[in-house]
């Protein structure tokens, strides 16, 4: 399977994603520069973490106007698999490929730490390798990961099984104490209603090898690999 990893100026998880899918998971990958307007021969797009264009205005707010974004939209609308991680999630929201928005963490500080996630829907193309309600450990690293959407949107997400991950305690309790950033209903990741575009704040590419702390992130990449014939 061939991954396309989108690089905006200011992206910094591009090489981490590349390493995870190629060196660890033995897949093909190529970088896609933000000026590209054609995306060809790619099975899955990754929008990695970072501070695209510095994110001085609002996270992802400038990146959505990048030439590559119209190509990404077309790719997504044609049913292509897209995962946005951290800044990638913020960009997908800004570009309205996903509902809602990510605002500043409720304690107004950047947080880099391991979180426990509950897999709320293992029926997606991003979680098929997991069992329902499985708990995984994935690190976060963001200052603006506080997911917000109006109550109608949240209801729709809940009713359609579009909430993929929630922050939880080590034993699986979804409580305020386990919420690192103030996200509504502890939401850590969501998928669009077609099921081919997912955004998540935690970094699965940072936990694909035991030596750097864990391998739970592989579940997500391996599920994606499974989903492409």
């Amino acid at each position, binding site marked *: 399977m061939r991954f396309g990893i989108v690089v905006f*100026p*200011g992206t*910094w*998880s591009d*090489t*981490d994603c590349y*390493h*995870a899918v190629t*060196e660890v998971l033995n897949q093909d990958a190529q970088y896609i520069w933000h000026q590209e307007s054609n995306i060809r021969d790619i099975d899955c797009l990754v929008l990695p*973490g*970072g*501070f695209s*264009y*510095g*994110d*001085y205005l609002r996270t992802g707010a400038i990146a959505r106007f990048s030439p590559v974004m119209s190509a990404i939209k077309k790719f997504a609308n044609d049913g292509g698999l897209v995962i946005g991680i951290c800044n990638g999630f913020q960009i997908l929201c800004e570009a309205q490929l996903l509902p809602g928005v990510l605002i500043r963490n409720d304690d107004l*500080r*950047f*947080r*880099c*730490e391991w979180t426990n996630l509950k897999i709320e829907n293992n029926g997606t193309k991003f979680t098929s390798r997991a069992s329902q309600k499985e708990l995984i450990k994935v*690190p976060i*690293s963001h*200052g603006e990961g506080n997911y917000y959407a109006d109550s109608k949107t949240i209801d729709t997400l809940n009713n359609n099984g579009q909430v993929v991950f929630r922050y939880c305690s080590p034993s699986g309790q979804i409580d305020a104490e386990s919420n690192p950033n103030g996200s509504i209903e502890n939401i850590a990741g969501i998928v669009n209603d077609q099921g081919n575009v997912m955004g998540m704040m935690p*970094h699965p*590419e*940072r936990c694909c*090898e035991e*030596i*750097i*702390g864990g391998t739970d992130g592989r579940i997500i990449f391996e599920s994606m690999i499974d989903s492409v014939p």
Partner: protein
Amino acid sequence: MPVSKEILDEIALKQEEYDEIVRRLGREPNSVELGMFGALWSEHCGYKHSKQLLRTFPSESPYLLTAPGQENAGAIDIGDGLSAVIKVESHNHPSAIEPYQGAATGVGGIVRDILAMGARPIALMNSLRFGPLSEQQNRHLFNGVVSGISGYGNCIGVPDIGGEIAFAPSYSGNPLVNALCLGIVRSNEMVRAIASTPGNILLLAGAETGRDGIHGASGLASRTFEEDIELRPTVQVGNPFMEKILIEACLEVVKANLLEGLQDLGAAGLTSSIVEATTKGGTGFKLDVALVPRRESGMSPYEIMLSESQERMLLIVSPENVTTVTNIMEKWDIPCTAIGEVTGDGIARIFEGSNPVGAVPGGMLTHPPIYEVFGDKPNSIAELQNYDLKSLPTPADAPYDILLKLLASPNITSKEFVYRQYDHQVQTNTVLPPGTADAAVVRIKGSDKGLALSSDCNGRIGYLDPFVGGALAVAEACRNVSCTGATPVAITDCLNFGNPEKPDVAYQMVESVRGMVEACNSLNVPVVSGNVSLYNETKGTVIYPTPVVCALGLIDDVNKAVSSGFRNEGDSVFLLGSDVVSADVNYLAGSEYLEIVHGLVAGQPSIDLGLEVKLQSCCRSLVENQVVNSAHDCSEGGLAVALAESSIIGNLGFSGSIGNRDHWAPSLFGEQPSRVVVSVSKDKTHQFKDICYVSNTPFVWLGTVTSGEFSISGIIDGSLSEISSAWKTGLSIALGE
């Protein structure tokens, strides 16, 4: 025209130094020239009071690839065709005035020093000192500095893997903000900061030049803050996004082998960067300030030459490569302009359009007068050293309550509140992240190797005896690296002191460096780079002598690297470095216990470097042979704190004894150096003892790793949850969060 005292004060030059400039030039300098002299003859750029001392550092190593003081950072061959590049630098004075930007641009500056070697920055660290958090101003500085490091470092995609934070009254109003960066470069792609070919073009890439930071090097970093004058305009403002794209663009240019030289613009901006590169290459240059892209109008040649605007790099390129280089910069949307060229006459010539505005032989600028520092040991220190520690009263609190108090003390408590604000995982190489081991460890992708980093300095010990303080800083940084299993291969240091013209400060400098040199020689580690920050005083209060030492270690198999937390219940716990838990009251000298419990900074600290060498070699051998499950050195807080930390980090407990119950204070809390707490599986005890005997390292059995109790026979009867809570919440409580 004779120059006024006000003008000389502004650039921190003395009248005699001005006279020397006139003598060397054979005429009065004009204002542009004087500004350039002021910058390059500042303490910050010229090392006037420290050069003699720096020359005494050992720099011999078969692995060292750079001559000391010649490049932007030190480079060490780590095998497989790779080099590690490392440097630490201070940003104390800017951070005192504007903590967020001061600290942020400190990170930016050190990253560009590494970039200037053609290396990819792979790790950051910070060594920070503040006054007590009970004072509002210190909390303001602390929060500002941490946010600045977080705001800048997180944006550029370089992990901040740890460091140290300490507190003492002497740093009130004069915080120390030392930033370290580690980089990796293929040895055959390493770049030098040199311009040796006349006709080559000087390209300025990155941010536009503004009025920020003028007199940063001379006015700010090279004087004390005696008066409350408005110095904020001398602090630069950072743009981490520009830094990030500048890193990627410069590395792309380096990979394509398009450069003769690469140099960052740091202190004293264009002036120091071009003058240093050309003087080193035995050349001169001509530069037209009118070509320098500016962010504000009406800037004078003087201001352009001395601006310390951030995120700028100087590329020295042959004429035929200029287009290729500018195309790469354009791809990254980075302004890149030819502003001058290298000449063969050795003279720094500044033009504004076709008008010459300054011309000075480069060598004059880079050879300021050098002063020897002479010091006297102050009587007050002798008195403190001779304090009779035997006369200390028995504390009112029980040993366990004192332990809890020490665990919560800002100097000892967990720094998670800080490091979780730093991205310490990006680049996916962090094997031992902050808070888990004595040194942070990153892997090198594509090999089994890893690099360990630790920064250390105990200002209180240095105050009581600067020689011991200097030696201990080196010993401890190297010990921490050795505890993970890595071999120390290089040291970079940041010498933070007060005004060197005062005899007692000069004494501290001379003695600290003497201690460092002795420890480096004993441990066989070269000093490969560093920085000096003097005049760290505010309104007469001089900081503790604080020679921050950062040790870089190399471990051949990073999979073997050991953390400081206990790993298995039932493991045996040993103290390495001593065959007895000493009850000698002299080991309380300069201890955290003495200050927290008795309100005293006193005593005569000591260190046995012979023992230190054996201990560290033993540690490495134990890790290499996979005999120990954890290793943690005893430093601030002594043995009891070390045992507690190993328990908390491993989420396990400890049960054991320490021998002498009557003199529990020195046994539990004495800070005898050269000691490490290790845990060993029962089936490896024999192997453990064999390795200790072979390396002639004493040890003593202390107890056993438990599931949750924390007890020391007859003295402490506590629990993991209590010590854990004290240690984890100490900093938040001190900050009033």
